[in-house]
């Protein structure tokens, strides 16, 4: 498991600045939420961590290593970062069954068939899907598909697990259960998790650390308790009330 650090990171599209001079530190083994209204840049930050987007300015560190610095022409491609990601739309490949979906990252890394089988079932057990390994995605419910995505993100033993609004397409009851399950899993595996959400309930119930974002900048960061007790300004106060 690893830590992540942003130093003076900016990101702009067509000269519009989405992220402005951002500094943040994500500690190893922490569950960190990026919380904020839509358009605040939280997903962009997540995508810069994963390498799906490249920052325009500043440095991004994975542990002690610079993984992106446009000025020095450093950029580690997403396929080399060994990060797991769970997408809002699940992104479960519809033409592969549950087993193949979860096995794919291992297949790419060249694991043997027997190793793949052991690791895939380990991951599927974690998300309680080991009995459905030969189902196709279209035979699964939304919640089950999200678990497949989670297992796929976990199976390669990633240095960081990134979650992009993973629960927003689920119904309220399931959301609550998944929230507890994900947090339990994270604590069990002592995994660094970065969790993007606009739902303050999710952020406050799951996180060790929250970054509250607005218009590409951090308004306040801290533990859920710190933020709740001492909202730093009216934006934070309004957002969490």
């Amino acid at each position: 498991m690893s830590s992540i650090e942003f130093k003076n990171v900016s990101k702009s599209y067509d000269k519009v600045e989405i992220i402005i001079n951002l500094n943040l530190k994500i500690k190893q083994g922490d569950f960190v939420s990026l919380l904020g209204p839509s358009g605040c840049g939280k997903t962009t930050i997540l995508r810069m961590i994963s390498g799906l987007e490249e920052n325009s300015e500043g440095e991004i560190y994975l542990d002690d290593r610079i993984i992106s610095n446009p000025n020095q022409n450093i950029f580690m491609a997403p396929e080399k970062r060994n990060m797991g990601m769970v997408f809002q739309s699940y992104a479960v490949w519809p033409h592969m069954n549950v087993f193949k979906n979860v096995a794919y990252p291992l297949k790419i890394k060249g694991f043997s068939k027997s190793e793949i089988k052991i690791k895939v079932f380990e991951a599927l057990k974690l998300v309680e899907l080991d009995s459905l390994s030969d189902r196709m995605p279209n035979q699964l419910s939304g919640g089950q598909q999200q678990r497949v995505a989670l297992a796929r993100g976990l199976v390669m033993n990633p240095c960081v697990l990134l979650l992009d609004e993973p629960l927003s397409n689920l119904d309220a009851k399931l959301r609550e259960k998944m929230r507890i399950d994900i947090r339990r899993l994270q604590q069990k595996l002592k995994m660094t998790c970065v969790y993007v959400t606009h739902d303050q309930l999710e952020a406050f119930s799951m996180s060790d650390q929250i970054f509250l974002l607005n218009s590409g900048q951090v308004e306040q960061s801290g533990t859920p308790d710190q933020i709740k007790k001492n909202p730093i300004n009216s934006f934070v106060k309004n957002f969490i009330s």
Partner: protein
Amino acid sequence: MRNISVSHKILILISFLLIFVLCVYPYLNFFNKIFIESFNLKLIIKVFTSSMFVKALFNSLKLALLVSLLCSLVATPLAWLLTRTNLKTRQIWKKLFTLSYAIPPYLGAIAWIKLCNPSNGILNNILGVNFNIYSITGLTIVLSSFFFTFILLNLMDTLGRMDATYEEAALLSGSSYIGVFFKITFPLIKNSFLSGFFLIFLSVMASFGVPAIIGIPGGIFLLTTQIYTYQKLGSLSGIYMSGILAHGLFLITFVLIMIQIYLQKKSYKLVSGKSSRLNLIKLRKSQPYINIILFILFFIIFILPILTLLISALSKTQGIYSFKNFTLDNFKYLFSLNETLRSFRNSLILSSSVTLICLFLGFIFSYVVFTLGKSKKQLINFLISLPYSTPGTVLALAIIFSFGGKVFGVNLGLYNTIGLIIISYIIKYLYFSFKTTEDAFYQVDISLIEAAKLSGAKWHHILIDIWYPMVKPAILASAFLIFLPALSELTMTILLTGPGLETIGTLLFQLQEYSDITGGTASALAIIVILLIMVLFLLFQLLNLVIKREKI
């Protein structure tokens, strides 16, 4: 580009090179050979001032306009009837009327000559009239009976997707149904109407088979058949004259496309992409009458010509209708010819190899365009669509000049080989597979690809493991769009063919033109081709059903 690996860059480079060689080089080289290397002002002036050119140009434009108008008149109400009313039989009619899309028009020409030739036309005899098929009117009817599907398919697609609330709003404002059509519906579908209209116009300008089979015997030359005639003179000046004239035709085509783009830019884009509920206009008592009218129309454009070919193919003596006259001799004679089996073999080799190559290139090129983003999309789209909109006659000449002899200084020796025909088909049909596959790329949820990236997959893993299975249905769908027209291609093949290189199309042309004007051999071959196409058409429909079911 920094994030793109070296192997990926090489793929992009090779793709650009191939697109250049296939879609740009033939045009540049053709122009260079005709107007720079062997520039001959006298010959150029001679071609463009000859009465033959003026007549051919006039005939081409006149015929194109007549066919486009007739098709619009028939197809517009038909499209409306089949999408916007509660006509119970509309699903069946939709299928039936689009059938003629699959059949090459020159088969219709052969049939209509039997029906309406001035000396012993069957229809002339039955109706007691003397209609001469070898005329502009004859050409208009035969071409329209095939090309009207272009406008029909376009309009049915748009009308089927159009948001009905526009029309409902007008109805509620007190407008009549007719008023709504002209004031609301038509302005909204103008774009798709125009693109259908221009597609027909350009298709007539580019058509060869029907004008050659019906027009030439009647002394009516179009630009395409005039180019062909120059080419078949065989002399060097004949070949150069055909090359010069081909540039004229190309220029006219280009201008027409520009006019179309200009007109379409000025019209509305109000049709939503999403399907919405349609308000079906209720037809009650008129349903049976409409069905009768539709049946008559279908009978004239479809059943009658095929029936004629069938009877002719099974007749000992042409023009006598009794069971005593029944024979299979025409088929026996057909298969006693060496050329017959050879032409089937050649056509099958050609269409299957071309289909495979086009599907592969279409997939790779759409992948490259997709990864490069929107800025390169338009240019590549334009380049690949260029040969598709170029008249086959022009393209075939450009290909002879560009790939027939030395290619970039290396003599490939492709002239009079099947290789040259394969290249020409690839260039012509690549657009079908490219366009269909490219559209499919844009419909894939991008997070499926990003998920693979984060799983550690390199670009070639993603291409094979994710992209290919995701766009496979589109690739398969375009296979049919290439295989069928390639199987019966005539326009380009007739200029590129050589000894031993008969295809189904050129054999039919030869049987009709030279050896067998009144006999049944051409009809026998035509019937076999139609059967073959029908079987393939059904197979494709089944395949489509299977794919759709898999998707669900």
